[in-house]
């Protein structure tokens, strides 16, 4: 990703070339955020921290002081969506339109898929795919996010709805495909990180975080 002069003068290219072996994947020395001089520094920094220790959520979510909060939130959400694809792939094995024909977590919460022009009821796995696609579209949209260096306040406001929709993938996995969820969570701590992320930046209401992940008793939606 970015170049760095080593002491001996050799340049490190932080790239995964075609044919890179699995054990060599992303195996390059860490770099301090301040040293990074690419436009993708924030993403690089987040990914580096995650690779190092995905359980150290506080550290991953600790924003470098010089950074704009909007950019920080944006980059994290991008990362979440990318990593959620991993969960989606695992879910595909088990979550089929025949068995999970609605996007549901607990019984009273069945959701419409907002990725369409007219929101409609999609099967859970379709919801997952559509929503992740929709999120990718929005986050890469030239209209709202033309730059990754500075982000307009009005565009930051769009992140909340992405979080809200993406979170349902976690809750569906948790309530209907618990084994997959647990395996994935142990590996990545993604749901925990996501929960902390949206709580920290007030992107979702606590009551809507219905996966009991933070240890403390989450109330969940009472009846509504």
């Amino acid at each position, binding site marked *: 990703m970015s170049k760095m002069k080593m002491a001996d003068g050799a340049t490190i290219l932080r790239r995964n070339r075609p044919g890179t072996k699995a054990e060599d994947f992303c195996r390059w020395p860490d770099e301090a955020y301040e040293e990074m001089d690419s436009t993708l520094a924030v993403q690089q920094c987040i990914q580096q921290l995650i690779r190092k220790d995905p359980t150290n959520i506080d550290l991953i979510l600790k924003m470098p002081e010089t950074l704009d909060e909007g950019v920080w939130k944006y980059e994290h959400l991008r990362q979440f969506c990318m990593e959620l694809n991993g969960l989606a792939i695992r879910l595909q094995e088990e979550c089929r339109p025949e068995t999970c024909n609605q996007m549901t977590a607990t019984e009273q919460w069945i959701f419409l898929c907002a990725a369409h022009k007219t929101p409609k009821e999609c099967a859970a796995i379709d919801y997952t795919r559509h929503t992740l696609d929709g999120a990718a579209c929005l986050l890469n949209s030239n209209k709202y996010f033309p730059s990754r260096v500075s982000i307009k*306040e009005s565009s930051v406001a769009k992140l*909340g709805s992405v979080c809200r929709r993406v979170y349902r993938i976690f809750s569906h996995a948790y309530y209907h495909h618990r084994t997959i969820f647990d395996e994935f969570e142990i590996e990545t701590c993604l749901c925990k990180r996501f929960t902390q992320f949206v709580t920290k930046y007030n992107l979702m209401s606590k009551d809507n975080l219905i996966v009991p992940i933070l240890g403390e008793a989450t109330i969940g939606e*009472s009846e*509504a």
Partner: protein
Amino acid sequence: MVISQEAFGGGCSTSGDTSDLVFNYDDTDTHANEISELYSYTEQPELALNVRAFEEQMESYNLPPSWQRLSMENQQSVVMKLLNQLEICDKSLRMRAARCILYLAQGCWAEVQSDAEQLEWTKKNVLLLCKFGTFAAFTDLLNIEIENNTAAHVALRKIAVSLADSQDLRVILSVLYTITEIVRNESNSNSVEYKETVESFINDVIYHDGEEILIVKLLGMVTKFCSGAAPHFPMKKVLLLLWKLILICLGGMNALKEMKMEKRVKVGLPAPDEDTIEVVRTMRPSSPPASASDLLEAQNQKRNTRPFRRQILMKQSSLDDHDTLGMELDSSVGENNDEMNDLSEFYDRRVSENNENNEMYNAHFQNRPPTPSPNQSGTIIVPRGLPWKPKVRQKEIDAFLDSSRLKFVGFSLHGDSTTLAGLPMPIHEGVKILREHVYTSLSELQIQKEEEIARNPFSTTEGEIEMTKTEILYQAMFPNLPQYMIALLKILLAAAPTSKAKTDSINIMADILPEEMPMTVLQSMKLGIDVNRHKEIIVKAVSAILLLLLKHFKLNHIYQFEFMSQHLVFANCIPLVLKFFNQNIMAYVGAKNVIPILDFPSCVIGDQPELTVETLEIGDASPYSWRNIFSCINLLRILNKLTKWKHSRIMMLVVFKSAPILKRTLKVRHAMTQLYVLKLLKMQTKYLGRQWRKSNMKTISAIYQKVRHRLNDDWAFGNDLDARPWDFQAEECALRGSVDRFNNRRYSLVSDIDYEPVDNCLSSVLGISFDLSESFTTNYELWLEQEVFSNCVNWDKLLEN
């Protein structure tokens, strides 16, 4: 009411029973009125449902049902939870959240003490809602409801569609409208604080990523409603939202003025130094031509028009120099000497008034008290200088030069608009004056450019089309623009006070009539007022939408404007508007179809007085109906826009006998209304005949006073070549040709076949596959036999020629 006292010269004259209307034309009425017009009085019981939805939601969140007492944090949390609930499959849960949000947008009125407090909370809540993307969420909800076929089927099967059928749609539209209206209000206040909110709102509405923009979606709703496929669509709310969205996205009068200025400067034209709206604000209304006295006057002042007109034309810049007046008249029109005597009285009055007032007028026109005259009705208000700078078009100078050359030199120089060789001095002077007053409009330049492209399609390039907001909207509307126009006019027709319920092809009352008809007298009175108010608001919205679109398209590109106006004309807009004015216009302007104590939010705040016949009128102090004058002016302006410089359409005004209708409209004592009526009368005067002119001298004088003069324009008597009424078909067709060429080039993928290279490669020409019908392919041998082999072709004949 926005009342600007100064604008009318220090107050209105109240002498006599017909006093001037103190009405200030603007983009919209006051914010409070615009909000209250969103709700019909029959919707009032539903307001309580909003509070109930709120209370239920709050209970489910274990929070007290008091919004004001919630911390900021809790409020945000509630909004986020509600938005989450909006995406739930279960419709009742979804709509409960929507209602709850509507209650928030309405300012949580159950907790407030006054209208001002309600407004404050509305603003606060709407901005909070905006921050969390509520508008986009409700756009999604609107999509669901538009596609909701069950609701349409239920409504279609009913004999009478009622309020209940549009309940959900009305909640959604009300939220969208309230947000739009609050944001629009913020954008007007020029506060820096919410500038970004306003900008991002506009961007969200107008810029789309391949999706249909909301404005077009709403127009689609209007056409769907008019086609009869969705009788339950609440048209009033749709139209109001449509109007406000166009207004906030494209901009109102001030924005138009600035944009015009900018565009003119950009292409090197001088900035316009007059603003119609501004000038007209300083004008005073004329007393209407009372029919009886008018006739009497006409008998006294016989045939006195012609010299007067000439005088004005010759003395444009020196009106106060009256000493030479008689001479001018004598020398200019010898044949009219016999009419001089009749005129003298008029001029005496005019001169003395001028001498008296000139200085005072120049010094403090604004504070000048109205002329105190005991018998004012029947006298002409005397002009104090011309309100408008006279204009002339280059085309008219060329025509003038042409005719002068023919007369004095004996031949014409085609395409030469400068040479004065051989022409006498007076012509030189005339040309000089004309040139001083030349006004080139943006449209003329655009038409020139179009002609050039048509002539040299390869060497002239269009240049990049600037993607202004208007351009985006035009492109989005373009494929279905004719249908939109027809639909809007259909609704206008149905809402016009003169149209009979029986002839309505569409029922615009579906979103107002309750399921149970009123039982008591009071209830039916209330419903009667409500129905009229409903119609008036629809007329207001439609007229405002049409005018806004016309104005913006015209500024963006003249042929966009012509495209829209041509479709309006084809859809019979001109007779429709005339039909609208063919009513008791004074009654319409003075109509009081309002029950102030039932207006939102007054109807839910504080103690409610019991509704009786007496309390119906409490709080209504206005001497006229703002919305009705507003609609009238809009419709008159639309009519002006459609007919200006278009002989064929002016002839429609004549054919549909608009003159008496328009003349009656002059009774509305409001300068702006009168100005637009006078303009319409001016353009058709020469077709109305001598008799009409003779008996309408007062109107003609008013035209002289108030309407801009066009140098060289013989509007009252002329028979210029340009005005051949018989070939109006050709004129309209030529215009259509230009418009189609413009549209095809810019907005359709079909390129002109004439400009494509000819394919003369044998294999590719033979390789083109044709769609042949099944019967042909099975029987082609028979065809060969009959059409080819049995037909003897003497190929030698080809060579012989």
